[in-house]
């Protein structure tokens, strides 16, 4: 008999269940299979009613993030062979409301993301005839790492502050704010500092550091937040020492 591995998957059907519960599925074990392959096998052959999000299968789209054995992971990059002998526990991302089975509601995340204005803001926009806003490789290098975020929300599921303080803007959004702050074409760092200089913003973070550990794109959100804090602290100090200075 070919080898198999068990998956304990959270099921929640709001029209039928009071609360989520685990259902166990036995799937074929293959060396080249990831958890997402196993979920698709379940969906195709065992139970078509299982709901989960996925798209690209290669760590680009950021939609297949789930808790695998309690760790936030992109299921397209979590190999079955790394979780032998099983059973592998598959749950929806921590701290997000569950819509159905492994699908979570991301409305709050999207609200937080737009709150930090993650786009280029300029005091004066050049007319198109003036050409593009040029940037040197060194200027690109300052924010490049933070621009790799794919909004997979693994960092939110790893951050206990997100669970404890629902208003906390969270790692990915702050990292993205920092990404635009560091962009030489952007001129809205002060605006974003104002938005994020409170307990729901950068000061909510107490440097647990797990966001950086779980990030599949090596964005280092914890680093972005600490750098943002340093800017915020220096700004506060400056306005204390030079209250008459131009702000």
């Amino acid at each position, binding site marked *: 008999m070919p080898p198999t591995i068990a998956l304990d998957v959270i099921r929640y059907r*709001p029209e*039928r269940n009071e609360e989520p519960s685990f259902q166990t599925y036995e799937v074929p074990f293959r060396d080249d299979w990831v958890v997402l392959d196993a979920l698709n096998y379940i969906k195709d052959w065992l139970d078509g009613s299982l709901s989960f999000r996925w798209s690209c299968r290669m760590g680009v789209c950021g939609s297949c993030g789930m808790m695998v054995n309690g760790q936030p992971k992109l299921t397209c990059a979590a190999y079955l062979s790394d979780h032998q002998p099983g059973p592998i526990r598959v749950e929806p991302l*921590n*701290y997000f409301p569950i819509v*159905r089975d492994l699908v979570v509601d991301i409305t709050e995340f999207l609200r937080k993301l737009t709150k930090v204005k993650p786009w280029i803001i300029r005091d004066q926009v050049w007319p198109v005839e003036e050409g593009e806003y040029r940037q040197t490789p060194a200027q690109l290098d300052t924010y490049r790492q933070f621009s790799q975020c794919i909004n997979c929300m693994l960092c939110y599921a790893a951050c206990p502050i997100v669970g*404890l303080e629902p208003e906390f803007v969270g790692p990915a959004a702050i990292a993205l704010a920092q990404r635009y702050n560091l962009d030489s074409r952007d001129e809205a760092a002060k605006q974003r500092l104002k938005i994020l200089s409170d307990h729901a913003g950068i000061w909510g973070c107490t440097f647990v550091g*797990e966001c950086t550990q779980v990030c599949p794109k090596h964005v280092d959100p*914890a680093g972005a937040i600490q750098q943002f804090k340093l800017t915020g602290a220096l700004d506060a100090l400056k306005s204390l020492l030079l209250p008459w200075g131009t702000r």
Partner: protein
Amino acid sequence: MSDLSHHTRYHPRWYRRRMSVWWWLKNRAYSKFVLRELTSVFVALFAILFLWQLRALAHGPDAYAQFTARLKAPLFLTIDTVAFLFVLFHTITWFNLTPTAMVVRVRGKRVPDKIVAGSNYIVWVLLSGIVAWILTRG
């Protein structure tokens, strides 16, 4: 089952999982984080003790002798030792955090994290050496 009546096809009922009281035991990083939060009290205590020492110093040799005599009590020794250990824990956390919070660039290249963090330790050892030299000199 009364809650189920709220679920209609176009108004789904979401489920919010509650955070366990023991969430901070699930992961080493979480435990360390909670330990840091709780032990910050000792850092404050250590600072207060230091200010108290300065105050005694300002009040003259007699007051300072009285202060040091008081510190020799077992209770103070214990508190001071525990506080010192936690201050050490926080100091190391801070030192290791610096490369994360500060991106140092020399000639356009990012200085490796180990050098940024390491320079803290070097300055620490140097300053400790100077203090030790001053203390042992006389």
